[in-house]
């Protein structure tokens, strides 16, 4: 049973006792237990480490911690040894005996598990010297890899809930709102509305009952920073919400989490229970007489529910359809009462601002966008993972310095930001300084922070079709411009990728997009044209190749390509076995195989299995 805290002093005393109980000479082996690393076997690694440490009899001086997400997902399972800060990557259970014997017993480094520099191949020992981490500014993610998300003591060890104590006892609600306003924090869900202003509107709205909502319905494909924060450091989100509730005057809050994120649901639920037990949440928080309760609501898997009014409808147990926002949700939101909705990352920023002050916070970033932003750097990039960088960093720095560039000696083609509402950004804009306004200026948007890198083998017409297909499946169907516009866009895009398009089709796409932007009811329909329009704006020659020459330059669109056997085929027969349509036949030993174009369904299996690049796409 955890002790209930009745004042900031008791909180500080508890922290002191937690710190004094920790043996600083103990080595901590922090193993990433985020979804990515678990997939790569970190659960088994943790188990093996514990067994091996016991077997070696060094349990008294080593602690194994199943920590939050370390961010460098590409290189999982990740093991970080503290205080030396050694980073071991791609650790498998079979590496555990050597790791324990060499590093934990003898104090030496296992060279082969260290990260090799992309250019020099030199092994790097310390985590903070690996380029992926060295160039980041990790404020929100700072403790993720150091704490066990199940343990409130770990969060308190790193001065957790200090901001709450300060907000409740040293500030009044108006001061908190002024501080958040002065910090320049803008909503991290994508819209970029000033958070402090939103809070003020809800505080000023009429009515006694007000709600706080945390949006963790991270539907943007390719974005997973909210999942990671909620899984790895749930108390930082709770702390932000409680401070927000106190400032706004709300006593009830909801966290809306995607059901596809089971670990986030589990860790958030556990965090709420622990915080309630300690009197940091619930009735009479920290003895201040302020009550605030949080409930978790799991999403039903609808992209449109990321939209605030649709999310609120879903919270009420209704179909997740958005409504027109001529009356703001700060006036009439959930149950027709004033409601303040912010995204997970926005909430997690709040304790930082309260602890360090608005002046410190607004010193990070650009004129219009303050603080840091977490991006999920994914797609065709070497160092895939979550990166936290100050606003204003260039795309080039993110993709090439932190991300290590494009794998397989391929050429960079575009980066897509903002998910289905965002756009493609070409190589000529790589020096763009990333912030809310700059991304919007070039036709894309911040969105929740997905950054999907594409190389020369990705077709930009296919990508436009991908997003429209995605949205066609996800739109709610309430308003006509979006419902019918999307359908027509999809039909035309299929025609073009099938090699049956005309330039009149391209013109029609532009007209449809303009109507949808103007007349759709919610953000989904209004921003849906962005991927198509930016693809047309920056990659028009690819569209013309599809329409005028019936050719897909990236060799993706099935109707416009053929697979062919080159002369260098030694007739090994791998593709003959793999072909699902028996379209490839062997012509004898050391003779190139033969491919029947009529039978071929262009599934690409032969291309993937061939080890000698003897299959050529034309």
């Amino acid at each position: 049973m955890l002790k209930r805290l009745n004042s900031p002093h008791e909180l500080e005393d508890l922290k002191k006792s937690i710190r004094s109980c920790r043996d600083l000479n103990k080595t901590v082996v922090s193993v990433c237990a985020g979804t990515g690393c678990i997939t790569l076997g970190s659960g088994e690694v943790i188990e093996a480490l514990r067994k091996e440490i016991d077997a070696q009899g060094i349990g008294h001086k080593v602690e194994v911690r199943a920590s939050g997400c370390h961010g460098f997902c590409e290189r999982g399972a990740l093991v970080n040894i503290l205080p030396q800060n050694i980073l071991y990557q791609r650790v498998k259970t079979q590496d555990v005996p050597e790791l324990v014997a060499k590093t934990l017993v003898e104090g030496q480094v296992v060279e082969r598990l260290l990260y090799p520099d992309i250019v020099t191949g030199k092994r790097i020992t310390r985590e903070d010297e690996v380029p992926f981490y060295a160039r980041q500014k990790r404020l929100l993610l700072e403790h993720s890899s150091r704490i066990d998300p199940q343990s409130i003591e770990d969060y308190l060890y790193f001065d957790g809930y200090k901001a709450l104590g300060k907000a409740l006892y040293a500030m009044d609600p108006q001061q908190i709102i002024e501080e958040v306003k002065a910090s320049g924090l803008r909503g991290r869900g994508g819209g970029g509305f000033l958070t402090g202003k939103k809070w003020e509107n809800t505080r000023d709205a009429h009515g006694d009952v007000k709600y706080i909502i945390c949006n963790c319905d991270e539907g943007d494909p390719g974005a997973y920073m909210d999942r990671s924060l909620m899984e790895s450091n749930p108390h930082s989100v709770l702390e932000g919400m409680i401070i927000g509730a106190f400032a706004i005057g709300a006593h009830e809050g909801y966290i809306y989490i995607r059901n596809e994120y089971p670990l986030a649901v589990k860790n958030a639920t556990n965090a709420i229970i622990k915080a309630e037990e300690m009197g940091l949440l619930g009735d009479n928080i920290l003895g201040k007489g302020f009550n605030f309760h949080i409930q978790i609501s799991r999403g039903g898997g609808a992209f449109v529910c990321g939209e605030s009014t649709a999310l609120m409808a879903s919270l009420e147990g209704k179909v997740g359809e958005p409504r027109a926002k001529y009356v703001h949700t700060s006036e009439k939101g959930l149950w027709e009462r004033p409601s303040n909705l912010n995204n997970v990352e926005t909430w997690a920023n709040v304790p930082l601002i309260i602890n360090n002050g608005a002046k410190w916070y607004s010193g990070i970033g650009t004129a219009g966008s303050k603080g840091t932003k977490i991006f999920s750097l994914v797609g065709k990039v070497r160092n895939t993972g979550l990166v936290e960088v100050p606003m204003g960093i260039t795309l080039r720095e993110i993709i090439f310095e932190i991300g290590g560039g494009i794998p397989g000696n391929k050429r960079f083609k575009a980066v897509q930001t903002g998910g289905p509402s965002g756009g493609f950004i070409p190589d000529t804009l790589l020096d763009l300084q990333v912030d809310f306004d700059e991304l919007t200026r070039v036709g894309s948007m911040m969105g929740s922070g997905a950054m999907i890198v594409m190389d020369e083998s990705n077709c930009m017409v296919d990508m436009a079709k991908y997003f429209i297909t995605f949205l066609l499946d996800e739109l709610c169907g309430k308003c006509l411009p979006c419902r019918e516009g999307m359908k027509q866009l999809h039909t035309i895009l299929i025609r073009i990728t099938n090699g049956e398009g005309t330039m009149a089709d391209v013109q029609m796409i532009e007209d449809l997009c303009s109507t949808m932007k103007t007349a759709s009811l919610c953000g989904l329909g209004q921003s849906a044209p962005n991927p198509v329009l930016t693809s047309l704006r920056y990659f028009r020659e690819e569209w013309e190749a599809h329409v005028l020459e019936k050719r897909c330059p990236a060799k993706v669109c099935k109707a416009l390509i053929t697979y062919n056997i080159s002369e260098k085929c030694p007739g090994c027969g791998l593709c003959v076995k793999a072909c699902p349509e028996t379209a490839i036949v062997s012509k004898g030993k050391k003779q190139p195989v033969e491919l029947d174009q009529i039978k071929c369904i262009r599934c690409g299996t032969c291309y993937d299995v061939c080890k000698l690049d003897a299959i050529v796409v034309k």
Partner: protein
Amino acid sequence: MKIDEAQIKTKVRGILQKFNNNSAMLVGILQDAQSELGYLPHEALHAIHEYLDIPLTRVYSVATFFKAFSLVPLGKHQVHICMGTACHVRGAEKILDSVKRELCIEPGTSDKDLNFSLETVNCLGACALGPIMVVDGKYHGNMKIEGVKSILESYKEPGGKI
């Protein structure tokens, strides 16, 4: 698996109790009903409508709006293919095609013996490992076309066919 009506009603009652018969928690109620019953049979939706005293149309509109719900029985093994952008640029379409060919079913359907159900999902948030296939909750990352068959075969009944 056929569950009789009385059993369904008892289970629904239990779930509703957990949610204090609060109709605002309809999405959560349906999620729990689906995980207990395997899918949302008509009898369950009817029971929810009756016990919560809300229109049947509302129960159905929510049950059919959200992707997570299935009104038909699902297969013993559930295959999910991530179609998020990161997986798409790394060839998720090819993996999906391959699974469709192996199981001879389209996304959103099950095979006739109810061995496998196939679903696409928008993003599992494990983008570094794309393309991803999930079978019964187990993630298979960095999928290749040649790997599909052996993974699916490991789930089939001994002696049975996919």
